[in-house]
């Protein structure tokens, strides 16, 4: 009962916040709502016994990615354009497509059959601590993707610097 209550709160908040994120005309406000949204999602992760993911969600998403967004928003500073039209294309058609997709996907959920249960039960993860269990998996079975991920980040860093660097006027 209490769990369902919790979930209900989180789900409601998440959906409302998502809507706020995509509908605010001021990007700064969008970012702020998104920040709140990320906290709620992190709370949902905690609820699902994924404390490390929750922490990462806050540190990386809220602490790094969203700050980047915020920076860019502030750098561009588009305040005078806020009075302009905020919608490109036609929103009703997009709405119908999205709603249709939602209906189809949720309808398909009914036929979902859970797969076999894995080795990491909640108790097992708790006894080992989530970070350790995840780390073991990352550094053994997923070592190669992990290294690739580091390469992806490296490329992104280089790419971002190259793209955003102002050409020095000689």
């Amino acid at each position, binding site marked *: 009962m209490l769990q369902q209550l919790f979930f209900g709160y989180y789900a409601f908040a998440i959906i409302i916040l998502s809507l706020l994120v*995509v509908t605010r005309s001021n990007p700064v406000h969008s970012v702020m709502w998104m920040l709140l949204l990320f906290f709620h999602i992190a709370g949902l992760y905690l609820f699902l016994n994924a404390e490390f993911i929750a922490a990462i*969600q806050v540190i990386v998403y809220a602490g790094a990615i969203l700050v980047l967004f915020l920076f860019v928003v502030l750098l561009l500073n588009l305040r005078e354009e806020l009075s302009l039209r905020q919608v*490109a294309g036609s929103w009703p058609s997009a709405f119908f497509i999205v709603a249709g997709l939602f209906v189809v996907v949720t309808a398909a959920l009914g036929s979902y059959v859970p797969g076999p249960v894995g080795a990491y039960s909640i108790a097992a993860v708790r006894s080992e601590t989530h970070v350790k269990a995840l780390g073991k998996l990352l550094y053994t079975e997923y070592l190669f993707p992990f290294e690739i991920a580091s390469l992806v980040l490296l490329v992104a860093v280089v790419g971002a610097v190259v793209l955003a660097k102002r050409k020095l006027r000689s």
Partner: protein
Amino acid sequence: MVPLHWYLTLSAAVFMIGMFGFLTRRNIIIMFMSVELMLNAVNISLVSFSHYLQDLRGHVLVFFVITVAAAEAAIGLAIIISLFRNKQTAHVDEMNEMKG
């Protein structure tokens, strides 16, 4: 006990909201944030699957999704900045050089 379906439905809803934002907004930064929203929706479903199937692989996947999201944000925002330098606008409907 909350059934898995609830989480999945929530995830689908957030995903669709993100998609709606991407399809309709003309501010390129908000479009970008909509994409992040969609990624988060996927993360929710991955974590909930992980929880209900008692398998940490979903978490590993989320980890990678976040990595990619970070890389994407860095590159994407750099692109937005250089776009803005050239066009003085962040509105996609004014970036239509590819028009037929």
